[in-house]
């Protein structure tokens, strides 16, 4: 596999605090890669080093084959960035932001008009493109920033918490937009997020970061599978009897009762749902309802850090 970003023990230390601690990442070309972690885990610091805003205090990294310390200019030419905090000028129009960016990134003059139209089309600002940014909604500002990051056709697009502070509807549309980009524009997306759902939905691969360390990295589905704990929730007419008999089944890892429902922890729940129903029927127990739940990334995070993501690292 071809990797567009590789880090080797990259580290950032501030006096007595280590924000990023010997991180090794390999990010496949044309993937959507997520760095998932609570606030203060080191996500932004990591991304800032990769886009040459911060110098690492140890280790090294390459982006698009260029060393981030030795060839910052080439790295900058290869990347587009959307910062976590807004980086727009209220008194310029959307189109002017794009024009300015294209000029600063050396997009050839004869291509500029075409790129501008492409991007404006993509981010669907409509007639607002020629109004001052101060009149834009939060979602429009975000779309403009993402569009701006693309106008010079970067190889890698960095998105630092792209949907932070946006309403659910706008968030959905930004997600769709990122997916579309990745598929149509041949661009690798490296994003940070502390929304589990976002990482789960968008990312081909996720690295979980906590206190500056990468704890684990894999595809969301593999990470979840590793937990080996699907939850089957079942409601039956003879609760006590079912519990007693089911305890003898060897594929059940754990069984307990919550609010007159039975929770069963198993591996590979998909195969076991019919089995459990059959088992109940054989014992003359009637099943009212049965429900299967796969673990989510929140559970993964919990397993590796012992905390939920909202509690912080």
């Amino acid at each position: 596999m071809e990797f567009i970003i590789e880090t080797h023990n990259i580290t950032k230390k501030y006096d007595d605090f280590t924000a990023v601690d010997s991180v090794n990442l390999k990010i496949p070309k044309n993937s959507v890669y997520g760095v998932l972690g609570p606030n203060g885990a080191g996500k932004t610091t990591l991304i800032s080093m990769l886009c040459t805003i911060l110098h690492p205090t140890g280790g090294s990294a390459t982006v698009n084959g260029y060393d981030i310390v030795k060839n910052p200019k080439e790295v900058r030419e290869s990347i587009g960035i959307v910062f976590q905090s807004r980086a727009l000028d209220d008194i310029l129009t959307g189109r002017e932001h794009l024009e300015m960016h294209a000029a600063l990134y050396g997009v050839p003059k004869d291509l500029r008009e075409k790129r501008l139209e492409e991007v404006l089309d993509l981010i669907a600002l409509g007639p607002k493109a020629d109004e001052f940014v101060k009149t834009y909604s939060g979602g429009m500002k975000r779309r403009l920033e993402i569009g701006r990051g693309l106008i010079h056709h970067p190889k890698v697009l960095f998105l630092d918490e792209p949907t932070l502070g946006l309403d659910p509807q706008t968030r959905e549309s930004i997600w769709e937009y990122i997916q579309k980009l990745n598929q149509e524009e041949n661009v690798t997306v490296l994003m940070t997020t502390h929304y589990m759902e976002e990482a789960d939905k968008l990312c081909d691969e996720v690295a979980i970061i906590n206190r500056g360390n990468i704890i684990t990295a894999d595809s969301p589905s593999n990470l979840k599978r590793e937990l080996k704990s699907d939850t089957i929730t079942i409601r039956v007419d003879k609760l006590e009897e079912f519990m007693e008999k089911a305890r003898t089944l060897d594929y059940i890892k754990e069984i307990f009762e919550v609010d007159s429902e039975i929770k069963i922890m198993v591996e590979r729940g998909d195969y076991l749902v019919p089995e459990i129903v059959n088992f109940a029927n054989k014992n003359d127990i009637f099943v009212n309802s049965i429900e299967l739940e796969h673990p989510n990334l929140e559970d993964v995070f919990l397993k590796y850090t012992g905390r939920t993501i909202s509690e912080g690292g």
Partner: protein
Amino acid sequence: MAELEGIYTIWLRENKRFVRYRSRILTSVVTPLLWLLIFGTGLGSAIRFGGVAGGYKAFIFPGIIGQTVLFTAVFSGVSVIIDRQYGFLKEILVAPISRPSIVFGKALGISTTALIQGLILLLLSFLVGIQMTPEIFFPSAVVILLISLGLSGLGLLIASFTDSMEGFNLILSFIVLPIFLLSGALFPVTNLPSWLQVAVYLDPLTYGVDALRAIILKTSVLPLYVDVAVVTLFALVMVLLSALMFSRREQELM
């Protein structure tokens, strides 16, 4: 080539901002007029001022041009701090363009806006009884441009060491007002007590105001070429120094 384009892009943004904040253009012309017409007339009536044809109002006219340029250039330079707080500076600093180009673009942009204000004032010279001629207008424009380059460089230099606008009043009290008051904009710099004399000649704007007086009023303390040489040197040093600081402190600025 790419760097030139970068300089132009940053220059253009500076000018767009200037044109769009209409209130800024208005105040930049009204404030000096208040000084000229009220302060100039008021003090001019109270004192006997024989140094210059046209009296005290005419005498402070070049000084008030210098003052306008000073406030615009330094505060526009310092406004990089606001760009930084709003995150826009990051967008520029992360672009593949050299730090000196960013500083040059910014300094040239600010100087253009200061020059526009200076030119408007030059055209209003009839209000203080001075007749404008091309021989006054164009050389004055060159001097104004040189002063603004130096002062915007100073503003950018201050900005590269300051991270919030809390220092704004400090900059006003300890840098901008002393530069203005010591420049001889409001009084002749001859016959001063020696402590003040020294301070006056340490002030770069003194030479700018003196040069403008030489051109506009045909009277000056120092020869014009000395004034122009000092102002040019100041501009070079300030712009290069802030370019150096932006390169050095790049990481802290983002």
